[in-house]
C-alpha cells in the first residue's frame, strides 16, 4: 500500500485523541454528593465485564475511526510491495510494453474492445494515480520508446501508427530486455513497467529465450526495489475465429494454384464466403467448411491477367479480423539452376535426374575437383555427396550463409575425414534380409510432407541397408531406433539438409525415387520464389523493417510493410507481406509460466478487466471512508445510554 499524500499520515496521531479526551474527562469530573453510594459501590464491584468491554470497544472504535479518516486523507493506493510503504508512490517513469502482435486484435463477445485497446485502457488506469510520472510506451512492433503526455492520448487516431493494430508478430522477451536496457541507459531511478499481452506462446518462445529471460531476471532482481514489473494477461480467446494462411503456391501454365490452410474454431459445419481478389477484381466463392481445419486449393486463372500481379483472399468477418486475409504475388520466375556434385557416378546420375527442372532438364553437374565460387553463382540449391575438403568447406559455408540451400549425402568411404561443416557417424550396416526402417517424419510440412491429395510419402517402406548418421541438425525423419534419417540446420540465411543414406542399391532403395524426387522437387520449388520477380515477406520481419521506399498496391491507404500485411512494390519487386505464421499459434502462457522464468522477483499480476478496476493499483480511499462510517456507527450504537428496561426500573407503586 502506498500513499499519494503521505504527510497526512501524521494525522494518525489523532487516533490517540479519544484516549486523551477520556483521561481529561476523568480529570475534569464533577463532584456530586450522593446518598445511595452503597448501590454505586455494589454496581462498580459487580459491573459486568461486558460493560467494561463495551467501554473499551467504544474507545477503540473512536480511535480506529480517526485512523481510518487519516488514511483516507492520505489517499492510499493498493498494490504496494509492503502493507505500508510511506512513499509518495510516484515512480519516475511508467512504461507500457504493448504487445501489438496480430493476435492482440482479438475481441470477445461481451466486450467490443480488442485486447490491444484493453491494454491501452489498462495503462490509462494504471497511470492515473501517478500524475507526476513520465509516460513511455514501447511496443513490440517498433521497439522504440515513445513519450506521451497523457495516457488517454494513446487512442488518438494520429498516433495509430505507433499504438494501432498491426499484422506483426512479437518477441516479448526481446522487447522487455530492450526496455530494461533503455531504462538503464537513460538512468531511470524508479519505474513501473506494465507488460500487457495475450501471452501467446509464440510471442515468448521461452525455450529459445531462456538466456534472455535469465538476463531480464538478473536485471530486475538487481533493481528489485526500483523497477517493478506488472503483468496484464489478456488471454481471452475469441468465441469464434476463422483464419487462413497460404501453405504453398503451385504455379501452373496459365494459372496459379495456392494451397490455403483454412482453420476455424467455435462453430460446426458451415458455408462460408471467401473473396478472391485478383489484381483488384474480386470474385466471391462459397465454400463448405466441415471441419476445424482443411486445405483449400483454388485455381486462379491468369490467362487474361498481366504477367506479374497479386492476389488477396479474404475470409468472413469474425472476432479476430487480422487473420482473415492473406496475400500472394505471382510473376515471371527464373527457376534456379540446381547443381549436383556427387563423387559416386551412380549417385550423381540419380541425384541429377531427381532434381531436374519443370522443363525436364536435368540438374547441372559440378566438377569434382576444387569447387569454384563462380560455379555457384546464381545457384540456389546444391546437392552434394562425398567428402568435403577445407577449401570446399569454406565455399559451401559462404554459399549457405548467403541464403543457399545445401543438400548433403554421406561419403561412401569410411575413412573420409569429417569436416567441421557437418560430421557423420560411423558406417552402420544391417545383416542380410534386415533393414533400417524409418518410423517417423514430419508429415504436415517440409520436404517430407504429405502430398496435396493427403497421401503420405512411402518413407516407411524404404529399405535401408547402410547408413551414416549426421550428427548435427534437427531431425525431420528418424529411424525406428531413434536415430535421424534426415536433418536440417539453419546456417546464416540458408539451410543445410543432410540425408543419412545414399541413393545406391548397396545402401538403400532411395534411388527408386518415391521419396527422393518429391523431396528434392519441393526443395527446388520452395527456393524458386526467391528468384521470382515477386516475393513474399513476413510482416514485421527484418526485410520489411528495412524497406524504406515502397509503394502500396492494394486499396487500403496508410499501411507500411513493417506493420501491415498487404501488397507492396518494394525495390521494384511486387511483394506480398503476410501475417507471420507464428501468429496462428493458439496456445497461451499462464502467468505462472512467466513468473517461473523470473524467480528473483515477484511480478504483480493484474486482472484483465475493464477500466480502472482492471488494475490492482487504485485508490482505495472509499474503503477507508466506509470503514470510518461503520466505526462511527458502531461507536454511536455502543455509546447509547442503556435504555431504562421496565424490568429493572424502580416502580413507585407497591
Amino acid at each position: 500500500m502506498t500513499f499519494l499524500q503521505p504527510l497526512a499520515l501524521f494525522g494518525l496521531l489523532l487516533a490517540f485523541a479519544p484516549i486523551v479526551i477520556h483521561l481529561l474527562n476523568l480529570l475534569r469530573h464533577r463532584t456530586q454528593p450522593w446518598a445511595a453510594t452503597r448501590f454505586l459501590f455494589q454496581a462498580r464491584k459487580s459491573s459486568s465485564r461486558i460493560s467494561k468491554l463495551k467501554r473499551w470497544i467504544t474507545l477503540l472504535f473512536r480511535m480506529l475511526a480517526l485512523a481510518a479518516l487519516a488514511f483516507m486523507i492520505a489517499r492510499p493506493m493498493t498494490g504496494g510491495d509492503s502493507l505500508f510503504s510511506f512513499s509518495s508512490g510516484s515512480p519516475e517513469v511508467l512504461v507500457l510494453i504493448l504487445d501489438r502482435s496480430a493476435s492482440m486484435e482479438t475481441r470477445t463477445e461481451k466486450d467490443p474492445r480488442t485486447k490491444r485497446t484493453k491494454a491501452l485502457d489498462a495503462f490509462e488506469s494504471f497511470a492515473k494515480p501517478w500524475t507526476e510520472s513520465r509516460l513511455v510506451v514501447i511496443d513490440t512492433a517498433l521497439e522504440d520508446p515513445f513519450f506521451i503526455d497523457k495516457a488517454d492520448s494513446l487512442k488518438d487516431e494520429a498516433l495509430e501508427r505507433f499504438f494501432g493494430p498491426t499484422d506483426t508478430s512479437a518477441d516479448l522477451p526481446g522487447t522487455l530486455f530492450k526496455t530494461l536496457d533503455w531504462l538503464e541507459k537513460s538512468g531511470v531511478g524508479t519505474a513501473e513497467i506494465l507488460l500487457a499481452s495475450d501471452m501467446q506462446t509464440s510471442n515468448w518462445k521461452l525455450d529459445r529465450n531462456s538466456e534472455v529471460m535469465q538476463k531480464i531476471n538478473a536485471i530486475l532482481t538487481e533493481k528489485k526495489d526500483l523497477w517493478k514489473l506488472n503483468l496484464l494477461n489478456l488471454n481471452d480467446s475469441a468465441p469464434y475465429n476463422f483464419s487462413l494462411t497460404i501453405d504453398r503456391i503451385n504455379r501452373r501454365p496459365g494459372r496459379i494454384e495456392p494451397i490455403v490452410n483454412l482453420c476455424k474454431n467455435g462453430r460446426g459445419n458451415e458455408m462460408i464466403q471467401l473473396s478472391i481478389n485478383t489484381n483488384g477484381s474480386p470474385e466471391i466463392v462459397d465454400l463448405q467448411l466441415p471441419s476445424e481445419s482443411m486445405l483449400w486449393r483454388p485455381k486462379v486463372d491468369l490467362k487474361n491477367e498481366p504477367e506479374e500481379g497479386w492476389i488477396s483472399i479474404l475470409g468472413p468477418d469474425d472476432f479476430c479480423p487480422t487473420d482473415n486475409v492473406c496475400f500472394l504475388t505471382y510473376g515471371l520466375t527464373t527457376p534456379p539452376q540446381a547443381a549436383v556434385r556427387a563423387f559416386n557416378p551412380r549417385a550423381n546420375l540419380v541425384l541429377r535426374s531427381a532434381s531436374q527442372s519443370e522443363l525436364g532438364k536435368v540438374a547441372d553437374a559440378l566438377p569434382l575437383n576444387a569447387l569454384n565460387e563462380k560455379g555457384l553463382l546464381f545457384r540456389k540449391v546444391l546437392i552434394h555427396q562425398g567428402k568435403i575438403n577445407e577449401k570446399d568447406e569454406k565455399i559451401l559455408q559462404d554459399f549457405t550463409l548467403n541464403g543457399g540451400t545445401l543438400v548433403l549425402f554421406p561419403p561412401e568411404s569410411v575413412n573420409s575425414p569429417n569436416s567441421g561443416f557437418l560430421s557423420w557417424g560411423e558406417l552402420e550396416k544391417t545383416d542380410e534380409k534386415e533393414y533400417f526402417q524409418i518410423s517417423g517424419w514430419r508429415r504436415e510440412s517440409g520436404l517430407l510432407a504429405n502430398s496435396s491429395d493427403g497421401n503420405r510419402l512411402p518413407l516407411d517402406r524404404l529399405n535401408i541397408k547402410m547408413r551414416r548418421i549426421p550428427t548435427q541438425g534437427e531431425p525431420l525423419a528418424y529411424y525406428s531406433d531413434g536415430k535421424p534419417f534426415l536433418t536440417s540446420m539453419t546456417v546464416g540465411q540458408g539451410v543445410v539438409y543432410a540425408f543419412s543414406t545414399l541413393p545406391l542399391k548397396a545402401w538403400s532403395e532411395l534411388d527408386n525415387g518415391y521419396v527422393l524426387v518429391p523431396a528434392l522437387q519441393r526443395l527446388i520449388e520452395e527456393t524458386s520464389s526467391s528468384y521470382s520477380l515477386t516475393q513474399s515477406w513476413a510482416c514485421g520481419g527484418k526485410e520489411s523493417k528495412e524497406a524504406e521506399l515502397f509503394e502500396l498496391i492494394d486499396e487500403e491507404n496508410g499501411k507500411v510493410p513493417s506493420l501491415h500485411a498487404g501488397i507492396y512494390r518494394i525495390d521494384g519487386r511486387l511483394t506480398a507481406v503476410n501475417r507471420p505464421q507464428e501468429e496462428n499459434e493458439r496456445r497461451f502462457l499462464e502467468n505462472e509460466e512467466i513468473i517461473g522464468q523470473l524467480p528473483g522477483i515477484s511480478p504483480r499480476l493484474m486482472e484483465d478487466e475493464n477500466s480502472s478496476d482492471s488494475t490492482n493499483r487504485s485508490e482505495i480511499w472509499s474503503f477507508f471512508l466506509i470503514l470510518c462510517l461503520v466505526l462511527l456507527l458502531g461507536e454511536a450504537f455502543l455509546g447509547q445510554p442503556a435504555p431504562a428496561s421496565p424490568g429493572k426500573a424502580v416502580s413507585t407503586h407497591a
Partner: protein
Amino acid sequence: MARRRKTYFHYVDQDSLSRISGEPLLTPFPMEGSVSGHHRSPHKGSSVEFAEYREYTPGEDPRRMDWRVFARTDRYYLKEFEAETNLRGQFVLDCSGSMSFGTPASKFEYAKKLISTLSYLYVGQGDAVGLHTLRHKKPQVLPAKRNPSQVQEMLEILGPLKPKGETLLASSLHEIAESVRMRGMIFIVSDMLEDPGDIMDAVLHLRDRKHEVVLFHLFDPQELDFTFDRPTRFVDLEGAGSLITEPTVIREEYLARLNEHVQELRQGCLESQARYHLVRTDSPLVDVIDDFSSGRIGGKAA
C-alpha cells in the same frame, strides 16, 4: 422587646389537610388507647357496636347483664360491645446524613413535611402522636400525646433539626420496639440505606409488639433515574468515601441493585403485614398522603 418566636407551621401541607380533613384516618389493627376514639380496641367496651353474647360468670359486673335474654330464657348472659379508642402514633425520623440529599428540597425536608402533616391530621382526630429522631448525638424522643399543642411541640423539634451522621435505623427500631409498650402505629420515614434484612428484622420486631408499621421510603428523583452523563466523583454523605466513575457505564447495574433493594423491602413488608410506600420527593405531598390514606378513610380500614 420580646424576640419573635420562629414558627414551623409551613411544614404542614395545606393541600393535604383540605383533601383529608373531616374524615378520620383509621387503622386496620386494634389499638390500645387511653380514651375513647375512632379506632378499634382489643378490649370490649361501651360503644354502640355489638360484639357478642357471653354467659355470665359470677363476680362480673351485673350491670352488663342482658335482662331481656334472662326474661326469655331464664339464663344469665352478658351483652358485650366493641370498645373504640384512640391511637398512639410514633413517628420515627431518620436523621442520617444521607437524608440531606436532594434538590431543590432534600429528603429530610420532605420527611419533615410528611410527619408534620400526618401529625396534624391524627391529633385533629383525637389521636396521640409522638416523635423519635434517630441520630448519633442527642436522639430525641417526644412521647405520644393527644394534646393539640403536641403538633406545635413536634414542629419545634423538627424545624431546626439537621441530618448528620450515619444511619442507625435498624438498631433504633429495635430499641423503639422495646420501649413502646402499648400497641400503636409506627411511622418510619427514612431512605432505608441499610441492609434490607436488618430493617425487616426490626419491622418484624415491631410487628411482634402488635404495632402497625408504615414505611415511607424516600427517594430523590436523581437516585431513581441516575441520569448523569459525564465522569462524576460521588461523595458519600455519611462519610463512607468517594467514587469516581463513568455513570453511563454503571447505570444499568446501579438501577438493578436499587431495584433489588426496594423489592426486598417491599416483599418483607408484604410478608409482615407492614405498609410500604415509596416516595419520590418530586411528587406532591398530597399524593403521598392520598396514597397512604386510601382504605383508611371512612368506615372500616382495609
